[in-house]
């Protein structure tokens, strides 16, 4: 399996993603001015502040040269993973439904949260267990998932919500929701299930020294497909 970690100007989790993937497979950085990612099986859009997050998070990066090819490859069924800012870019590019708006608290939030795996029937979660709880770090100012009612219903109907913020008992309660996301949504996939975006950072929870290896589930799921 060949993986690409796309670097936009302002990406800052690119090295963290690269390091985790590199341990398991052939991984390259791809500069945003490149025009093709066709050679890769997995395309990762890492976290950070692409273009300073000016205007809206992900709004400018979405028009980077490389994105045309990312959209094309996604259309062919290649795996695309967007983490944090990468998730925002995927929404801006309409590869995923909805949008990420300012946290309800109006503050940037960095802490560890619990998320519930809603569905293991995707290449991003199939090494996990439905209903399992993962401890993952979040670090974002705009992670408040928004979509209109109809879209939210459709997401549920098509089992596209893969992660929800939950409490220690596994309830997707209001107290467990760090940023005001609709229905506690922390991560969604597209209908074809090959594009996945999430606000938490699995790459920061893949080394036992950092206190959690729960993020590995996502990378292991992906890798066992290839």
């Amino acid at each position, binding site marked *: 399996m060949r993986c690409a970690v796309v670097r936009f100007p302002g990406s800052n989790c690119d090295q*963290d993603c690269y390091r985790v993937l590199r341990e398991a497979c052939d991984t390259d950085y791809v500069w945003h001015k490149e025009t093709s990612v066709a050679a890769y099986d997995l395309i990762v859009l890492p976290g950070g502040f692409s273009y*300073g997050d000016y205007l809206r998070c992900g709004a400018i990066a979405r028009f980077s040269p490389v994105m045309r090819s990312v959209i094309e490859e996604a259309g062919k069924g290649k795996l695309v993973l967007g983490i944090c800012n990468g998730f925002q870019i995927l929404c801006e590019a309409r590869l995923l439904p909805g949008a990420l708006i300012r946290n309800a608290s109006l503050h940037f939030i*960095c802490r560890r949260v619990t998320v519930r795996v809603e569905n293991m029937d995707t290449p991003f979660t199939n090494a996990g267990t439905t209903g399992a709880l993962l401890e993952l*770090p979040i*670090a974002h100012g705009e992670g408040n998932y928004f979509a209109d009612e109809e879209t939210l219903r459709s997401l549920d109907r098509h089992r596209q919500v893969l992660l929800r913020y939950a409490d220690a008992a596994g309830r997707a309660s209001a107290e467990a929701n760090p940023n005001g996301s609709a229905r506690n949504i922390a991560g969604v996939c597209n209908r074809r299930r090959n594009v996945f975006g999430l606000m938490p950072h699995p790459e*920061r929870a893949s080394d036992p020294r*950092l206190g959690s290896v729960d993020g590995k589930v996502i990378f292991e799921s992906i890798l066992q497909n290839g």
Partner: protein
Amino acid sequence: MADLTDEEFDRIRQILGREPNHTETGIFSVMWSEHCSYKNSRPELKKFPTEGPRVLVKAGEENAGVIDIGGGWAVAFKMESHNHPSAIEPFQGAATGVGGIIRDIFTMGARPVFSLNSLRFGPLSSAKNRRLFAGVVAGIAHYGNCIGIPTIGGEIYFDESYEGNPLVNVFCLGVLRHEEIARGAATGIGNPVFYVGSETGRDGLAGAAFASRELSEASRRDRPAVQVGDPFKEKLLLEACLELLESGCVAGIQDMGAAGLTCSTCETASRGGTGVEIDLARVPVRERGMTPYEIMLSESQERMLIIVKRGEEERVKSIFEKWDLPYADIGRVTGDGMMRVLNNGEVVSEIPARKLAEEAPVYHREAAPKAPPAPLENPPEADPQTVLPRLLSHPAIASKNWVYSQYDHTVRAGTIVAPGSDAAVFLIREADKIVAATTDCNALFCALDPRGGARLAVAEAARNLACAGATPLAVTDNLNFGNPYKPENFWQLREAVEGLAEGCRAFDVPVTGGNVSLYNESPAGAIDPTPTVGMVGLIEDERHITTQAFKQAGDVILLLGGEGSELGGSHYLKVIHGLKAGVPPRMDFVREKSVQAAALALIRSGFVKSAHDCSEGGLAVALAECCISGKKPLGAHVQLSEATPRVLFNESASRILLSVAGNSAAAALALLEWRGVPARRIGVVGGPRLVINEFSWEVAELYKEWYSAIGDLMSS
């Protein structure tokens, strides 16, 4: 320019052999400001120990000191203040402070890997102080989060003396290979000089001179001088510069911080023993009609000066273009020692670079000693039952989560101990090394006794590192004081510097650099002397990493260093009785070092489950913090000689609380006895309450008071 004295003018005439013109006068006035020249503090700074077997770049040589951490790797770190800009515009002032210190670090060729911040404000009861506090924190978050450098620790105090003059000290550490150390010298006559980064605007005009004046009504008129930071640009600049340095095309590199183009040209020339000639017509500008004076003194952010090896221009340009950065070839290195500034070919200023950069006047200011503080004969009493929760919810002691949850402290996937323990612990993946870092200064002690307070600050920093399992490597400091022309302020500065120097010698750690911020005054007077210490340590083995929270019911609690008795300068007196009084705790370095060494020895033998030093609030607060700062609150049963305010809340130094497994307590105590360190078993971890003699508190309650205190105040 009113900021130069008559004597200084005479000196300038002597250097030039003629009258300086308007631009030259501006140039001298910023370069000879306190901020750039340290003219009032330099003789004092010479007192710091700066040598050591690990020192690769010494204090003062370059933008930041560099310290060997083994395996061919090194760290560059430094602390910098942005007090005055933050008083005027807290968000941008703090943000650009972060930007500045990060530039200092990557200018050394190091990749910045984490930051710390040390903050001081007036009390949160005032809406104005809340606005300053919120603005500064948001500004630090804005810049640090965007650029992707985790902010993993720091300190925050609130005291009336910072009313109207907050302190914002920021620290950054970067990692590099020994052979990657970059120099800020203009070497190689004929080499081209490149400008890269944001266009120059009129923002921040003469900020360095501004930082060297007291805050007054007049500073309000300076308001448009505020600089706006662009962390996105800086991220591009950081990546481009590291790529550039790796390419081998660079002869010298220097950031444009205080005094912008002026400082970077004359300092690189001076360090290189050369001259530099630039033409301002080629400098990328943001606004039309800028005068040479404005361009030379602008403090626009996110700009660098790069001395390129001749013949490598095209490679350099292609790297700037890759990162979409504005750049220009603005001049060249010359052999005549002059900083020559042209405007469209016409000379607008010509000054011997070395004289400008290195030969600022040095003043030995007058010092007026203050009488030593009187001991407090009969400290007032209070009921410990209510005192402990009140101390825990005082913003200086309460949990700082409201602050650090706004900082991305997990990016770079290296934060092993996040904010919330004695010292932050970070895995530098590039080097596979684990370092611990802390900033400390209890200015309450310094207000009463600047020398003693400074000694205590160094000791506390080292103690925080020891509790994390680290041995100290080196120190950076930030000296925040009032107007040095007032003899009582200068005396404080001198005492504090000598105290810091004594501390650093005692722990055998060199000072690798730092910053001096004087004129921290508001109409109400000078701030408390605040010599902030930033200390970095190394952890040899990942198994030695220790945090402050109790881990398990049944573990035994040991107190190293005794119960103490000194209430002078304590938070008990200040918070409960409104007294800033008494004699601060003594600092016996021999005893301090033996306590720290013993704690470290126990940690290394694998006995220790948790380690926490006693600082603000004393033993009772330290015990409560052990109970409530972990994942889940855990109670404890503790028996002391007596549960009086003196025993519970004194802030005597050299004390550490350890918890060890029940079955290793005896062995641990034996080892401590053998080392001659006073130590006693004082209790056991467990239960829902913290019980100390006849007093007892529900830990869940204490947790709530402590955890939400700052957030509650901020949303009130």
